[in-house]
């Protein structure tokens, strides 16, 4: 195990502690790779009665989460945990909290391992730490999977040192001491608080100390429903997001953006007049537009709107939805199996672009000086952000400090750091600290989006068996240039896919898999590169790819004369999968009689060592205004850390599925999305949300699987299937109700 260091640490409140305390920076662990995760998950353990077993797909053997864990392993134990003299544990998490509840889950792990009340654990998001190499990326539903072992081992090491300190002080064998409620307790009842021991614990030479985390059977906090550690700050308005920070001299700044994506400034025609507007402080042309700084954001907004700018063309000016759809259809790779010999089901599906639209728009604070820079932003790829920003402003990396701030939603958006980069460029141009905020309209039109996709699926069947299953996905290129390429390159030799695949194809093959025994299965991605701003959107390819598959599964079941739940039961690969399906079927009273215009629908999904089923009931009496009125979800994530937080993630996934299946998407029109706010991009509101939601978390039966993105694909399938049954239609294009029912904002 590593050794403790003495340090003076600066905390979030700015107070600098000068006293000694126990700080762990545990390095060079003698640990093996997470090989237990590399075994195929239940493949072949429970052969389905009816299915023709298919070979494992790449994602069965090694999924994207395994890849991230593998790439992060060399630095996985470079974690910082401090035990302070007031008896608190302060942990620095090298990930981004964006609402998914990882700080709470990690605090629970620390509290459990240290036998410390949860209220005494503080979790702070670590600054960008390049020494972590590939281990500071928040994505792929991977945080809990990747930190579960390392956090527990680090906290266990701290606990062992505190016990050793008490043992030295009392001259008692450490075996006779126990820890309880933030203190070490001797057999005679003497207690020593961690705070009183941390100084000694930091200085003891303990070369032979070996530690092991608690057996999971002894967990009392981990696995129990727990409220978020930051909830009180959120409900009292004291939570500080990036733009709520008071950084000396950083003034409100906004950017006037081009009329089409990636347009550039040719000339600013009324600079003098705009500079004379009330409150305006400065103005600068940057690569993305014209930046205006003012005393208040209201004035910056007025000034940017008043700017008269001539623009150069963007990168997709001629492009509209019809062209994109045509190109996607042309790009879908052909099927291998001809439809002539056997009975078959063919279907094609289209999914629109979807904005991430986190409620906190793209924002950042940057203070760039001649010899150093400091950045504050919500960043899921903090190291790549730091490296890119340093290069862009011409400073050595070690002169750029990047603070990761907790932020108001992401859904994949904050994998990219364009706001932070832009703020740094503006700060350099203006030679002042900058508080940058994107307008909502800009965030939706010039921000990032889930790429549009086209899907062709063909399944052949005979004698009650599905013989072949082919899925061809054509997608507008997803931008993965946030460090994932380096990770895939570094792990290439271990990847379960061979040949000259693109990063995108590798991500596709390590995330998407068919959970059913459908004989010979091939799923292929072909991308259409368009110079637009795209990014992974919660569940990357799975929401569309698996969503479409779950629709096809219903149609296949119908063709083969089976009930949708019975059909899935028969063809799922494992009993573990069948248990979650059975759970929603029973709890949701599958098959109950529904009034005309109402229907049930079901969907299933398996990814990142977790699986889930979703059953919904829809009211589609007016097919133009459907509402999901009831939902039942079951999930098996292997080992839930905080079931309450997990339920929240599944609820969020359900709402995402309701939105993107029924109404929310972006129309691309001559190089720009038409949608510019929530009045136009129809993300669900309370009136679109079910009044009855029940979520069941299956008991722990293994290592933690991924959960952040799990909830979307099954719900997409369930909602589309319910809509199809209620309306007697076969939805093929999503969102289903997608008229331009608004007047777009001016460009």
């Amino acid at each position, binding site marked *: 195990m590593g050794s403790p260091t003495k340090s003076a640490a600066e905390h979030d409140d700015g107070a600098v502690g000068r006293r000694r305390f126990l700080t762990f920076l545990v390095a060079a662990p003698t640990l093996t790779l997470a090989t237990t995760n590399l075994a195929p998950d239940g493949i072949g353990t429970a052969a389905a009665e009816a299915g023709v077993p298919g070979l494992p797909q790449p994602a069965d053997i090694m999924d994207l989460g395994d890849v991230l864990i593998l790439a992060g392993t060399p630095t996985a134990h470079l974690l910082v945990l401090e035990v302070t003299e007031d008896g608190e544990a302060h942990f620095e998490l090298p990930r981004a909290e964006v609402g998914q509840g990882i700080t709470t889950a990690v605090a629970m792990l620390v509290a459990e391992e240290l036998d410390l009340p949860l209220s005494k654990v503080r979790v702070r998001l670590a600054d960008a730490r390049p020494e972590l190499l590939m281990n500071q990326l928040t994505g792929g539903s991977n945080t809990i999977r990747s930190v579960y072992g390392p956090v527990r081992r680090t906290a266990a090491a701290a606990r062992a040192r505190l016990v050793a300190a008490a043992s030295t002080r009392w001259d008692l064998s450490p075996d006779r001491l126990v820890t309880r409620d933030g203190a070490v307790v001797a057999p005679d009842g003497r207690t020593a608080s961690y705070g009183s021991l941390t100084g000694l614990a930091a200085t003891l030479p303990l070369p032979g100390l070996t530690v092991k985390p608690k057996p999971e059977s002894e967990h009392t906090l981990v696995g129990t429903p727990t409220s978020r550690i930051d909830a*009180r700050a959120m409900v009292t308005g004291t939570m500080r997001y990036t733009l709520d920070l008071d950084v000396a001299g950083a003034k409100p700044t906004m950017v006037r953006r081009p009329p089409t994506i990636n347009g550039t400034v040719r000339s600013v025609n009324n600079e003098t007049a705009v500079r004379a507007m009330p409150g305006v402080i400065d103005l600068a042309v940057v690569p993305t537009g014209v930046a205006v700084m003012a005393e208040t954001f209201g004035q910056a907004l007025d000034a940017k709107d008043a700017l008269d700018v001539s623009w150069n063309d963007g990168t997709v000016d001629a492009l509209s939805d019809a062209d994109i759809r045509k190109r996607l259809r042309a790009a879908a790779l052909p099927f291998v199996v001809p439809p002539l010999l056997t009975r078959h089901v063919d279907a094609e599906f289209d999914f629109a672009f979807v904005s991430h639209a986190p409620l906190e728009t793209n924002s950042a604070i940057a203070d760039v000086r001649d010899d150093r820079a400091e950045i504050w932003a919500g960043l899921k790829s903090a190291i790549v952000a730091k490296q890119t920003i340093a290069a862009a402003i011409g400073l050595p990396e070690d002169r750029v400090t990047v603070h990761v701030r907790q932020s108001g939603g992401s*859904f994949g958006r904050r994998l990219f750091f364009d706001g932070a980069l832009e703020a740094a460029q503006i700060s350099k141009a203006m030679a002042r600290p900058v508080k940058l905020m994107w307008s*909502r309209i800009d965030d939706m039109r010039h921000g990032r989006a889930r790429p549009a996709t086209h899907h062709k699926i063909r399944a052949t069947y005979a004698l009650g068996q599905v013989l072949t299953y082919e899925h061809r996905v054509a997608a507008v290129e997803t931008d993965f240039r946030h460090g994932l390429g380096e990770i895939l390159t570094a792990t290439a030799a271990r990847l379960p896919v061979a040949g000259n695949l693109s990063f995108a194809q590798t991500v596709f093959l390590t995330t998407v898999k068919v959970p059913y025994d459908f004989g010979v299965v091939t799923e292929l991605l072909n991308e259409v590169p368009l110079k637009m701003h795209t990014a992974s959107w919660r569940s990357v390819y799975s929401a569309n790819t698996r969503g479409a598959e779950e629709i096809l599964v219903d149609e296949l079941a119908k063709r083969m004369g089976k009930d949708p739940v019975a059909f899935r039961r028969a063809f799922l690969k494992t009993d573990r999968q069948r248990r979650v399906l059975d759970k929603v079927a029973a709890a949701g009273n599958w098959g109950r009689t529904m009034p005309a215009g109402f229907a049930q629908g079901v969907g299933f999904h398996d990814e990142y060592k977790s699986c889930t089923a979703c059953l919904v009931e829809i009211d589609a009496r007016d097919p133009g205004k459907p509402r999901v009125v009831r939902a039942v979800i079951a999930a098996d994530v292997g080992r839930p850390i905080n079931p309450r937080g997990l339920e*929240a993630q599944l609820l969020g996934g359900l*709402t995402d599925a*309701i939105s993107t299946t029924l109404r929310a998407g972006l129309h691309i029109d001559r190089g720009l999305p038409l949608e510019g706010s*929530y009045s136009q991009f129809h993300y669900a509101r*309370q009136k679109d949300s079910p*009044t009855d939601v029940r979520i069941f978390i299956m008991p722990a039966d293994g290592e933690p699987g991924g959960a952040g993105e799990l909830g979307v694909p099954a719900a997409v399938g369930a909602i589309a299937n319910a809509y199809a049954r209620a309306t007697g239609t076969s939805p093929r294009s999503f969102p289903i109700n997608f008229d331009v029912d608004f007047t777009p904002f001016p460009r």
Partner: protein
Amino acid sequence: MPTYTFAVNGKTVTVDAPADMPLLWVLRDKLGVTGPKYGCGIDVCKACTSHLDGEAVNPCVVPVSEAAGRKVTTIEGLADGDTLHPVQEAWLEEDVAQCGYCQPGQIMAAVALLRKNKNPTDAEIDAIQNVCRCGTYFRIREAIKRAAAKM
């Protein structure tokens, strides 16, 4: 520049500002009251929902001149010292917040609803238009019902 005097969370403030400056920016940029959030600026997302003389308003479209002589309450002014408002308590008990960014507005909207309607139906709760991009709506609904039972 004209000056306007009004109360923010029980404290009298006077600000220099153009008459048409939205109250949101007066609160956030001039007074440092950052609980109300920007999400759209056009009264669509409702993230900035606060109270003006007890009524829910959206400061992103309320000019500061309209606040003159009146009482503005933001999320920061809802609790009584360390004693939370029953709606805030219900929010904690239901563990509603995910990213938390919309929640000050959601809570202020819920408080305004419960002030007018002690026991709102599902249809009345549906009328709250505040966007929650994390999709916490069901927990918001349960928290409102829980708060109604408390109050």
